[in-house]
């Protein structure tokens, strides 16, 4: 790998170590946040533009262990999975049985309750009015029976002068 004039591998390694020691001793530079999984995946597939790729590489330089993720992603395998593992994962999502219809309970609308109250009040009022009318009617009839309509007391007294005021001899 070495070119003429280039430090030999041991010296190159020493220069790199020296750089890393000084870099870590320096004031902490703002580290790029961990790229999202989607960005790493895009980088693994070579689908990032230069700027985005540099950002990922800057982060990878500080987290070289994540290079294993990229290697695994590029050589993604597919193994046979035990059925119980499949069942366990599938059970994470429950589904409605086919044909089932879920009918939610209907909440009692507040409007109907208020309407019933109004109806009740109206009914009470109507009863009172009706009672009053019936009572009045019955009372008026009874009054008429007590005082027959052919002769009225007030009429006799008014129509037949007693003579008391006229000075005539009274029937008495």
């Amino acid at each position, binding site marked *: 790998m070495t070119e003429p004039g280039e430090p030999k591998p041991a010296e190159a390694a020493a220069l790199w*170590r020296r750089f890393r020691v*000084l870099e870590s*001793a320096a004031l902490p530079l703002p580290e790029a946040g961990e790229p999202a999984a989607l960005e790493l995946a895009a980088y693994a597939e*070579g689908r990032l533009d230069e700027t985005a790729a540099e950002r990922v590489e*800057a982060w990878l*330089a500080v987290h070289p262990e994540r290079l294993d*993720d990229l290697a695994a992603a590029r050589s993604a*395998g597919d193994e046979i*999975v035990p059925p119980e593992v499949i069942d366990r994962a599938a059970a994470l999502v429950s589904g409605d049985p086919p044909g089932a219809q879920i009918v939610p309970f209907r909440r009692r609308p507040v409007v109907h309750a208020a309407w019933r109250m109004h109806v009740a009040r109206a009914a009470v009022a109507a009863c009172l009015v009706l009672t009053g009318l019936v009572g009045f009617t019955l009372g008026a009839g009874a009054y008429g029976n007590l005082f027959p309509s052919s002769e009225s007391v007030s009429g006799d007294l008014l129509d037949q002068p007693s003579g008391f005021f006229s000075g005539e001899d009274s029937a008495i």
Partner: protein
Amino acid sequence: MADSIDLAALVRGSKAQWDAFVRRYAGLILSAVRTQAREAGEIEDLVQEVFVRLCKDDYRLLKTYDPARAGLSTWLTIVARSTARDVLRRRQPQTTPYDAVPEAALAAHAEPTERIKLPEGLLSPRQKLVLTMLYDRDMEVAEIAAALKVDPQTIRSTHHKAMLKLRQHFAPENPAKSGSGRG
């Protein structure tokens, strides 16, 4: 690729599509998390955790997938490995084997005797990444080229340019420190 899976119907709550999705991608997810499991019994749990994460909160994560940006298999592999890592991290306190720590990270953070300030952007992100893969992870040029989807010659060229920059930057210090005539 979504094959015959109707993701739109799936995220709307289709049980049939979910079942088809599980049957289609369980193998891929299992393959993705296998190398991360510490023991055989963990693998199936990790697979389940991945599916939980995918359907959680009304398929919130699954809804972020955009087929225009990356293939579904690629995305699922990365999601699966990320989920497995999170699960395992929660289960165990974070410890790192001594040998897995790059030498640079083990260096004492004492004030360097030579007060060298690294200019910002001395190495580009790509150069840093290549050097990390070469020296920290001991990867071969061909491996790095395959990982970054570039030609091996590009990797050599990137390494060369990075080394030139580093050498030029540290050069005034080297003769004074080492005293060896490298020329």
